[in-house]
């Protein structure tokens, strides 16, 4: 057993903020030290996708970090100009492929902005139910990926177990495990099967019962987790707003901005939920924000299931959709932040221009500002803070 002093010493060392130390300029000159240019290339086991970071390193400390993107550019905006409005929905599915429902929802809101359609309330409730289930299916694996990159293998197994079960529910409702094409313009594709609400309810109750033990107790007080994530990537609210962050990276610095509450869409005004913020703007804070948002999602799912009305699930639309000319805007709170779609239509049945504002794209600017000064291994937890998805930043 360690003596008391040693234990106190170790404990305080763990809670010190992790900060890199750059060699002083005179030390560098005296010893002839130079910086190393290194490319953390597109294929890397720990990158959330294909990202190339051109790093300038002084020993282990990063002096400059320059992300190079475009390794998955799939020309989504250009292809969308040649497809009819309903045919763009599968393309939006593949934008941020961890949160497909939110992408679809954002696009569909933008198109419905220019149409004159009344969406039945049951369809709205189903949309919110699916979006909140998707939020669970996105936040839980992102915690798993954060831990995988720090070296822990168990949390990601638990996370993918949950994701498999949620994907089974999605398969029963929409017919597909991942690319749903479920939220359509005017409603949703089809009604929920009759036994699904009970299945979702049972699953959510089970998840709530094991959430604390599987995802919180296992991770939160772990020494290695604390020493690698406390103080890493620390930002203030001012800086985060300047950099244009949204979503959990912004809320973990203390700014409470949530599109579900501030720019409400669908039936969120009728549901009760809290907006979770944390004051320490580091990776550990983002982990706590995501955990708490999972619990809020569970709360929202229960409310949706209780309050769901009966009725049709698709509005009254013709076969050929011709929105009126002009700009349509849709904005949703995806698990990564603010996902906005701007559609310019010219009255025909294909859009003239579709522009996606993806949260992963905008939150990645954090890397240029925050990484310099940290050690090289700290880049992994910072990517866990942003939690980007490469289909999102590369469109």
């Amino acid at each position: 057993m360690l003596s008391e002093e040693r234990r106190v010493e170790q404990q305080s060392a763990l809670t010190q903020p992790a900060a890199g130390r750059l060699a002083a300029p005179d030390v560098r000159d005296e010893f002839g030290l130079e910086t190393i240019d290194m490319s953390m290339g597109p294929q890397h086991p720990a990158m959330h996708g294909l990202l190339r970071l051109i790093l300038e390193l002084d020993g282990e400390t990063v002096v400059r970090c320059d992300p190079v993107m475009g390794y998955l550019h799939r020309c989504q905006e250009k292809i969308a100009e040649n497809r009819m409005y309903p045919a763009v929905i599968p393309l939006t599915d593949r934008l941020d492929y961890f949160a497909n429902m939110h992408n679809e929802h954002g696009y569909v809101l933008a198109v419905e902005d220019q149409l004159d359609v009344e969406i039945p309330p049951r369809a709205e409730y189903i949309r919110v139910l699916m979006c909140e289930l998707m939020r669970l299916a996105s936040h839980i694996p992102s915690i798993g990926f954060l831990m995988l990159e720090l070296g822990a293998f168990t949390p990601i197994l638990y996370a993918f177990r949950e994701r498999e079960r949620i994907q089974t529910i999605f398969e029963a409702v929409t017919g597909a495990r991942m690319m749903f094409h479920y939220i359509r313009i005017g409603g949703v594709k089809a009604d929920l099967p009759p036994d699904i609400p009970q299945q979702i309810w049972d699953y959510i109750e089970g998840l709530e019962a094991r959430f604390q033990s599987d995802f919180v107790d296992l991770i939160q007080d772990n020494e290695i987790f604390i020493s690698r994530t406390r103080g890493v990537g620390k930002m203030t609210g001012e800086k985060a707003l300047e950099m244009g962050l949204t979503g959990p990276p912004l809320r973990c610095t203390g700014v409470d901005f949530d599109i579900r509450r501030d720019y409400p869409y669908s039936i969120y005004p009728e549901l009760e939920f809290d907006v979770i913020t944390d004051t320490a703007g580091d990776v550990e804070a983002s982990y706590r924000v995501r955990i708490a948002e999972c619990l809020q999602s569970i709360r929202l799912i229960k409310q949706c299931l209780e309050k769901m009305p009966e009725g049709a699930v698709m509005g009254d639309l013709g076969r050929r959709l011709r929105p009126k000319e002009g700009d349509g805007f849709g904005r949703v709170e995806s698990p990564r932040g603010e996902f906005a779609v701007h559609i310019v239509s010219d009255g025909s049945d294909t859009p003239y221009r579709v522009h996606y504002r993806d949260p992963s794209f905008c939150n990645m600017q954090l890397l240029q500002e925050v990484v310099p000064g940290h050690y090289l291994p700290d880049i992994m937890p910072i990517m866990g803070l942003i939690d980007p998805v490469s289909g999102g930043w590369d469109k």
Partner: protein
Amino acid sequence: MAVTLPEGNLEDRLKRYLDGFSGRHGLRESEIIGNAVRVVVAPGDVPAVLATAKEALGIRHLSFITVVDRVGSFELTYELIDLRGARVMVKAVIEGEEPVIGSVTGIYPTANWHEREAYDMFGVAFAGHPDLRRLYMWQDHFDHHPLLKSFEISTRRTFEGLR
């Protein structure tokens, strides 16, 4: 260190923003639609208008910059969010085939990558941008701007960039 966000009634705030813009700059069009203030300005005024929005009116978040290629002119839309329910859309139309406009990176640093993307996809040059290079396409030997209407997509073009 707490960040203060705007408070108050939504309509009052929208009117205050509209008056703030029209009082300081000459606007071509201005109206309030729903929860958004829509303002059309000349391209040369865009940095000044956005500076007003950030400093005088306290609108702190630039959501996105969209470029639309109307063949013969380019239409830029800057969407600003005040984080509490109000939106501001600033539109500018640049005539001609070689669009140049002032950069707003000094005002909203998040515009850095939005402007790089607009340059990459459309060729819109932003004067004063600290680091205007391509974002998605190959940075050295790709001479086209893909989202222009004159760039047609087909299966034949894919091998142009493959060295």
